[in-house]
C-alpha cells in the first residue's frame, strides 16, 4: 500500500504506512540513525499532507509490526474497543486532530474515547500537532489513579522523590528522602533506582521506607525500581512492596531485551494486587518508557521512535498503572540531540499517553553529551506544568549521583508548583500541613519548632548517624 502527496512541483511517494509515519515525524536524531527520517523539510510536510487524509480506521486493518510475530500488536488489536471508537470512526487523521482541539472533545468525551484509540492512531495524529496542540489537548485529559495518594487530580502536580545513591547506602538514601520531604516532594512515590538488583537489598530499602511511612503516618507509596522478577521474589518472601516497577517498550522483541513479556507483567500485577496494600485505590504498577529504546534494542521493526514509544503505552494500560513516565532525555543525543528535540518528545509522550488514558509523568532530563542544559529543562518543566502533567521527578540538586544524569530537583518542583498554582496530591498536602512543612499559605516553608517536621528531623538524624 503506497501513499503520495505533491508539494510545489514535486510528487513525494511513501512505500508503506510505516515509512509515511516516519517521514511525517518532527526531525530527531534517532530517526536519522535508523534511516527512516524525511530527507528534507518538504518531504516531511508532504508526508503530513498524505497522513492528514488517511482514514483513522486504516490503523485497525494494518499491522505495522506483524500480528503473528508480536504480542504487543496482538494486545493492541485484540483489546480494541469498537464501541468507544465509534464517535470518531469516520474521521481522517487530520479531522481527528481538529476534533481533539474542538470544544466537543472535553474531559469526559476524551476519557470515554481512550479505549477506542490505538497507539498508532494517536502517534499519527500527534505528528500533525504543534507543541501548543500537544499541551492544549493533554490539559483536557483527566486520568486519576490511586494507591495511598491520588495522582492526576485537576490543579495538582505530584513528584517522585528519587533519592538514589551509587552503593545503595541506606543512611545516604534516608538523608535524601528527608530533604525531599522537607521540600514537599514524594507524593507520587519514593522511588529508588538500585545500584545492584538483588532481593535482599530491595527488601531492606523497602522496609526502611515502610518504617518511616508507618511511624510518621505519611500517605505515600514506595518502590525500588529493580527488575520485575526481583520484585516477584520480594513479594513471595513477604517484603513490603507497594508498587511493582518495570521498563517497557513497544515491541515483543524490545521487551525481551528488558527481560520481560506480558505474562511476567501479569504475574507481577496479580501478586501486587493480592497484597492489598493500597488504602484508597488498587493501582499497583509503575512503568518507565522512552523514545529510542526499541531502536537501541534493534527491535523497532523499521518504525520511527515515537510510534514505537506510543506502542509501549498499550502495554502499560493493560495493567492499570498508578504511574507511568517517559525518561525523555536520558537515552542520549543519538536519539534526541538537543533541547528542542527533548522538549518536543516530552510533550508528545505526555499528550499521547494521556489520550490513551495513562497517568503520565515525565522525567525532564538530559545527559552531559546532549546539547541541553537547565534552561531547556526549565522550559519543558513549565510547559508540562501547563499541560497538566501527572508528576515529575525530584532529585537532590537535579544531580542523580547514581545514574549520572541531570533531572529536575526539589527546588524545580517548588518553582513549577508555585508559579502555576499547582498543589501536591490532597492526602499528602494534608500531611505536609499537619507536620508543619507547608505554611498556611500553601508554601513549603518548614517550621521546625514544636512541629512534626522538627520531630521527624530530630529523630532521624541520630538514627542515620548510627547507621553511618
Amino acid at each position, binding site marked *: 500500500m503506497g501513499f503520495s502527496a505533491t508539494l510545489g512541483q514535486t510528487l513525494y511517494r511513501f512505500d508503506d504506512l510505516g515509512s509515511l509515519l516516519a517521514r511525517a515525524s518532527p526531525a530527531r*536524531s534517532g530517526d536519522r540513525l535508523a534511516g527512516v527520517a524525511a530527507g528534507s523539510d518538504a518531504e516531511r510536510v508532504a508526508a503530513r499532507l498524505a497522513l492528514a487524509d488517511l482514514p483513522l480506521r486504516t490503523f485497525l486493518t494494518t499491522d505495522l509490526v506483524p500480528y503473528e510475530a508480536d504480542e504487543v500488536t496482538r494486545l493492541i488489536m485484540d483489546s480494541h474497543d469498537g464501541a468507544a471508537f465509534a464517535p470518531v470512526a469516520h474521521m481522517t487523521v487530520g479531522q481527528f486532530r481538529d476534533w481533539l482541539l474542538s470544544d466537543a472533545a472535553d474531559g469526559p468525551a476524551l476519557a470515554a474515547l481512550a479505549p477506542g484509540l490505538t497507539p498508532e492512531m494517536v502517534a499519527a495524529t500527534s505528528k500533525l500537532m504543534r507543541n501548543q496542540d500537544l499541551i492544549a489537548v493533554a490539559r483536557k485529559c483527566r486520568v486519576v489513579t490511586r494507591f495511598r495518594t491520588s495522582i492526576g487530580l485537576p490543579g495538582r502536580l505530584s513528584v517522585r522523590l528519587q533519592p538514589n*545513591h551509587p552503593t545503595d547506602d541506606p543512611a545516604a538514601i534516608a538523608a*535524601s528522602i528527608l*530533604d525531599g520531604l522537607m521540600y514537599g516532594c514524594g507524593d507520587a512515590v519514593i522511588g529508588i533506582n538500585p545500584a545492584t538488583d538483588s532481593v535482599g537489598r530491595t527488601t531492606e530499602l523497602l522496609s526502611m521506607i515502610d518504617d518511616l511511612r508507618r511511624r510518621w503516618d505519611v500517605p505515600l507509596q514506595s518502590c525500588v525500581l529493580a527488575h520485575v522478577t526481583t520484585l516477584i521474589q520480594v513479594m513471595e518472601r513477604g517484603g513490603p512492596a507497594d508498587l511493582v516497577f518495570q521498563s517497557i517498550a513497544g515491541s515483543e522483541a524490545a521487551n525481551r531485551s528488558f527481560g520481560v513479556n506480558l505474562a511476567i507483567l501479569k504475574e507481577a500485577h496479580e501478586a501486587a494486587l493480592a497484597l492489598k496494600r493500597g488504602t484508597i485505590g488498587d493501582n499497583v504498577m509503575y512503568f518507565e518508557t522512552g523514545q529510542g529504546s526499541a531502536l537501541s534494542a534493534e527491535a523497532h521493526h523499521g518504525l520511527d521512535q515515537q510510534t514505537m514509544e506510543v506502542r509501549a503505552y498499550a502495554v502499560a494500560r493493560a495493567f492499570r498503572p498508578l504511574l507511568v513516565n517517559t525518561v525523555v532525555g536520558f537515552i542520549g543525543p*543519538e536519539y534526541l540531540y538537543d533541547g528542542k528535540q527533548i522538549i518536543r518528545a516530552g510533550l508528545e509522550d505526555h499528550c499521547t499517553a494521556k489520550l490513551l488514558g495513562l497517568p503520565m509523568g515525565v522525567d525532564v532530563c538530559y545527559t*552531559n553529551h546532549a546539547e541541553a542544559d537547565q534552561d531547556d529543562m526549565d522550559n519543558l518543566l513549565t510547559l508540562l506544568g501547563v499541560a497538566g502533567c501527572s508528576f515529575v521527578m525530584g532529585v537532590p540538586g537535579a*544531580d542523580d*549521583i547514581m545514574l549520572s544524569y541531570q533531572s529536575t530537583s526539589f527546588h524545580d518542583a517548588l518553582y513549577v508548583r508555585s508559579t502555576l498554582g499547582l498543589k501536591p496530591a490532597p492526602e499528602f498536602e494534608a500531611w505536609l500541613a499537619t507536620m508543619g512543612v507547608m505554611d498556611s499559605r500553601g508554601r513549603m516553608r518548614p517550621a521546625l519548632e514544636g512541629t512534626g517536621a522538627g520531630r521527624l528531623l530530630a529523630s532521624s*538524624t541520630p538514627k*542515620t548517624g548510627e547507621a553511618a
Partner: protein
Amino acid sequence: MSNGTFDSAFDPWANLRRFTPARIALGRTGDGLPTDRLLEFQAAHALARDAVHQAFDAEGLAEQLDSLAHVIVRSQARDRATYLQRPDLGRKLDEADKQALTAMNCPSKGSHDGYDAVIVLADGLSARALHDHGAALLRVMMERLAGWNLAPVVIARQARVALGDDVAAALNARMVLMLIGERPGLTAADSIGAYLTFQPKPGVTRDAERNCVSNIRPDGLPLPVAADTIGFLMSEARRLKLTGIGLKEDRPPELAHD
C-alpha cells in the same frame, strides 16, 4: 535582604549532608536556588560539557608515549556533532586507516599466530580523560604485560568502543584493550573506561562479550589498581580464550594474595 540573610537560604538539616554526596540541604531563596548553589551546579556542568567537546590532541598524546611504536587513526565520524549522533560511524575505522593498519599486521606463521593483543587509546566522550591519564595508564599497563607480543599502540579519534574490533581485525590481534574516555558526569569528567574483547568480530561482537573496568582516574579507581585488574583479566582471557560474562573479575584467593 536588609540584614544580608534570608530566612530560608540555609536548611537547618544541613548536618545530613555528611551522609551523602547528593546535593541535599542546598537552602533556598523563596522557592529558588541560592546564587552560590546555582553557580556551583553550572560550574560542574560546564566542566563536563567542555570535556565532551574538547578537541582530542592525538599528536600530543603520542609524544607522551616516549619511544613506543604507535599509529594514529580515526573513525568514519568526521566531527563531534556527527560522532554524537551517529554511533554507528564511530564504530567503524576510516577506510584508508584500515588499509594502513592492515599493512602493519602481524602475519600468521606457524605457531606464531598474529599479535597477542592491541591497546587502543581512544577519545570516546572525554578527550580530557586521555590527555590527563592516557599515557600514565598505558605505562603501568605495559609493566604488567611483559612477554606479550603487542601490536603498535593505536590512538583513535572520534571512537566508540567497537572501533577496537576493526583495529584488532586489521592488525591481526587476538585481543583488543580499548582505553576510552567515559561520558563525563557532574562529579568527574576525566574517567577512562577499559573494555577488553577476545577475538573481536567487527559488526558481530556484542557488549555481553566484553569485560569492562570503569571509573579509572586518580580520584576514582587508581591507575595501578586498574592496571592490576586489567592485567589479570587479559591473562585469564588468553587462558580461557574468551571475554564477557564467562570471565569474572573475582580473582581466586591464591592470586589475590600475590
